[in-house]
């Protein structure tokens, strides 16, 4: 892939040293210059002292994944050098604290690589600032080296620290300038990769994570209730909605457990709200009984399941796609559900809105299946157009007064299986719902006939959802339909696969990418059609090729090749390209 006006950066240091914040600042600096940005954080599950690093890319064309190689590294500690110097390109550079790391350090990269020694500690002292300000100095130095200019960073620093008062703002702006100037004064020769802000008009973009996009989608969809129990990597969504709660009139509740969270959510939804909860695998386990109840009582709830590396506690802060089958089959007994897997930030936003609409239209639970890599990475995305948001509450009856036939039948056996829905508190009707099998009015009924009829009713909804798939992009194909080879994937691997496809196409290979978005109900026909006659290569972040089994179960198609990664780390584009070539050899 031709890489012009494009850069790959790494910022590394100790846990607790503000690595992620620094990465985001730099990302925003590039965003303001009209560039596309991808940034992702790698951190272990502890608060201080472990090794954190932020991988950042910026380019004039869209970027969807971290790059394999690093052009410029900001090493805030020696460990960063040690761990990452092999990843530097041969003419890359490394910024390091010359007060802490000796120029003789064996960890410094080999010659060829530029060594940008900046006396961070001394400058921090000069500024009389806390140690963490060294990050800002280093960012300034990086911008100097890249020839990017400092204006955007200054702007961002002003906005970011405004709330903390003028002193903090000017301390940071000064720090950035010092770093910037130091670079200009000391590092004469031009660095291999220069990065320039784009001039003129360019598209309006945002830089945000999947968690934030899901949160924005929830707000846009009119979600007014979230009960959750903190769990990495889903917590940031919860925190985001908490921060927005007063502004948007949302009630947020930190529940005593995931069991409480899902039951509170179902309670709020039964009472008529758009309500959601969010968690990761371990917490989702505890929600499965509630999920089954939502299916039985036909209560619309949305659950964001943010996957991380399992099983069990696993690697709490790393990524995986190991819960697909679990999401599809969680909860005892049989009931219709919707499982959708966004693959990028825009889809996180849009599919969250769709999730709320689907939940209410079909009165059944919807699972948004995401993962750490998608929901904790920052990606530039065209600003969402809120004008396009539409809300469909399905067969929800107005709650002022019930005027239909009495008694009101919450579970009326209707052709499409979707009974008109009333919420408690309505004058003129009582609303009954039962987690046990029930008759039309909602009271218990365990006769054989009723049991069959009610199961059929619920599954008629499933057929309706299947039909409704045509209104959505249940799958998306990227690249030429006529390609010989089709890569198949879902969720967060989308970004890296797109990058790999682009590289391989540039090399003249004929291949395309099938992204599957609806996992349940499964768009079997679309997938069959797309895969017919192709050499298929599955790309998944798990060990057992779960999408592969699902495709086989649903279509009979057996994917020919599997590229799997299950060490908690996301795929890198070049690595993926190499594995694809290996397969196609």
């Amino acid at each position: 892939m031709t890489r012009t006006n494009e850069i790959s950066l790494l910022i590394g240091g100790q846990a607790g040293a503000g690595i992620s914040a620094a990465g985001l600042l730099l990302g925003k600096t590039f965003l303001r210059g009209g560039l596309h940005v991808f940034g992702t954080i790698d951190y272990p599950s502890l608060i201080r002292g472990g090794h954190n690093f932020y991988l950042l890319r910026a380019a004039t064309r869209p970027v969807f994944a971290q790059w394999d190689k690093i052009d410029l590294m900001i090493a805030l500690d020696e460990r960063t050098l040690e761990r990452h110097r092999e990843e530097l390109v041969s003419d890359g550079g490394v910024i390091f604290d010359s007060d802490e790391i000796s120029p003789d350090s064996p960890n410094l990269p080999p010659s060829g690589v530029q060594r940008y020694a900046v006396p961070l500690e001394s400058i921090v002292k000069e500024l009389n600032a806390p140690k963490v300000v060294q990050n800002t100095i280093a960012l300034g130095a990086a911008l100097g080296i890249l020839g990017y200019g400092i204006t955007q960073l200054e702007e961002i620093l002003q906005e970011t620290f405004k709330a903390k008062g003028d002193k903090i703002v000017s301390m940071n702006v000064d720090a950035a300038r010092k770093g910037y100037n130091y670079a200009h004064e000391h590092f004469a020769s031009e660095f291999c990769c220069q990065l320039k802000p784009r001039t003129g008009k360019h598209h309006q973009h945002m830089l945000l994570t999947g968690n934030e996009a899901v949160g924005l989608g929830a707000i846009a969809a009119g979600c007014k209730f979230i009960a959750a129990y903190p769990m990495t990597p889903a917590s940031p969504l919860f925190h985001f909605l908490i921060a927005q709660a007063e502004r948007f009139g949302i009630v947020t509740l930190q529940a005593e457990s995931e069991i409480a969270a899902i039951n509170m959510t179902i309670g709020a939804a039964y009472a008529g709200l758009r309500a959601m909860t969010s968690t990761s695998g371990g917490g989702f386990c505890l929600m499965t009984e509630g999920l089954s109840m939502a299916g039985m009582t036909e209560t619309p709830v949305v659950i964001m399941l943010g996957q991380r590396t399992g099983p069990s506690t696993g690697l709490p802060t790393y990524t995986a796609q190991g819960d697909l089958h679990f999401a599809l089959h969680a909860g005892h007994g049989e009931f219709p559900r919707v499982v959708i897997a966004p693959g990028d930030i825009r889809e996180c936003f849009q599919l969250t809105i769709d999730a709320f609409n689907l939940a209410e239209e079909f009165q059944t639970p919807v699972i948004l299946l995401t993962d750490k890599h998608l929901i904790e990475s920052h990606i530039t995305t065209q600003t969402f157009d809120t004008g396009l948001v539409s809300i469909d509450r399905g067969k929800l009856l107005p709650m002022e007064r019930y005027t239909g036939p009495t008694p009101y039948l919450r579970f009326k056996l209707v052709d499409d299986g979707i009974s008109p829905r009333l919420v408690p508190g309505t004058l003129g009707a009582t609303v009954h719902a039962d987690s046990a099998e029930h008759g039309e009015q909602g009271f218990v009924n365990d006769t054989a006939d009723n049991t069959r009829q009610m199961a059929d009713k619920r599954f008629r909804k499933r057929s309706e959802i299947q039909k409704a798939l045509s209104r959505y992009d249940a799958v998306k194909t990227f690249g030429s339909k006529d390609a010989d080879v089709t890569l198949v994937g879902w969720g967060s691997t989308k970004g890296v696969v797109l990058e790999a496809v682009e590289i391989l196409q540039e090399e003249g290979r004929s291949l395309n990418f099938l992204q599957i978005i609806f996992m349940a109900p499964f768009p079997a026909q679309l997938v069959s059609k797309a895969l017919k006659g192709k050499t298929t290569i599955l790309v998944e972040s798990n060990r057992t090729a779960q999408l592969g089994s699902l495709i086989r179960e649903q279509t009979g198609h057996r994917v020919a090749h599997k590229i799997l990664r299950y060490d908690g780390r996301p795929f890198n584009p070049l690595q993926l390209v190499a594995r694809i070539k290996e397969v196609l050899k």
Partner: protein
Amino acid sequence: MTSLTREDLKTEQPISWCPGCGNFGILRALQTALVDLKIPREKYLVVTGIGCHGKLFNYININGFHGIHGRVLPFATGAKLANHDLIVLGFAGDGDQYDEGLGHFPHAARRNIDVKLFTHDNKVYGLTTGQTSPTSPQGYKSKTSPGGAIPTPINPLMLALASNASFVARGFVGDVTHMKELMKAAIQHKGFALVDILQVCITFNRAQTYQFYRDRVYKLEEENHDATDLQQALKRSRETGDRIPIGIFYQEERPVYRARLPQIKTQPLIKQPIKPTKLKQLLREFT
């Protein structure tokens, strides 16, 4: 329709409790309390657990949700926050609330969520055919404790008091009128209320019978109990032998959970329209 009659409250569902079961008394007390209170029917929401007690859902014609075992409180919490115009009444079993659902109980209490919890405390798992429950007395024999229950029983009132519940009471199915008044007091209380009800299970619990309780219960209000004194309430809650107090152990005025949520100071959430909210300003923060 502001005045409710007992007829209004009936459903057509055949009652499947054993004849003589204490649950009949609870249903009757509930019906008469609701008749007394003269609040429109649509204002109420009944949430029940799974067990014999949970069948009450089928027998009272007000809005209801028969949820899963042990989860009355979180469900009720969600429903109440969604629509605080609803008076949310929870009916749970002793197995349901003090085994499976115990983890929710102190939290509902300390939140002071405005939900009322009535526990059908028959000291046995009724519906699953008579296993030992967490409130079964030590030594209690059943098919799950043929050698006699080993642990000391859960003391629901003491737990509630230790969890900062703002209304803690005990009723007895042998005195429906007294129980009805407790229910009314609980409903009128602002905040979380527990009424633990000594319910007789005539089929499985041969120890805690009507007579057993009749011989032992006394009314707190007849013995100058000061329900504003927590230390006194704790002491009374520890009386378990020959004299078993019923009535209000403790009551305190404390802001309810909602009072700290500006979002729902006035209009219930459910009545606040859903519209594609103006997100533009928020979106700008990401640019």
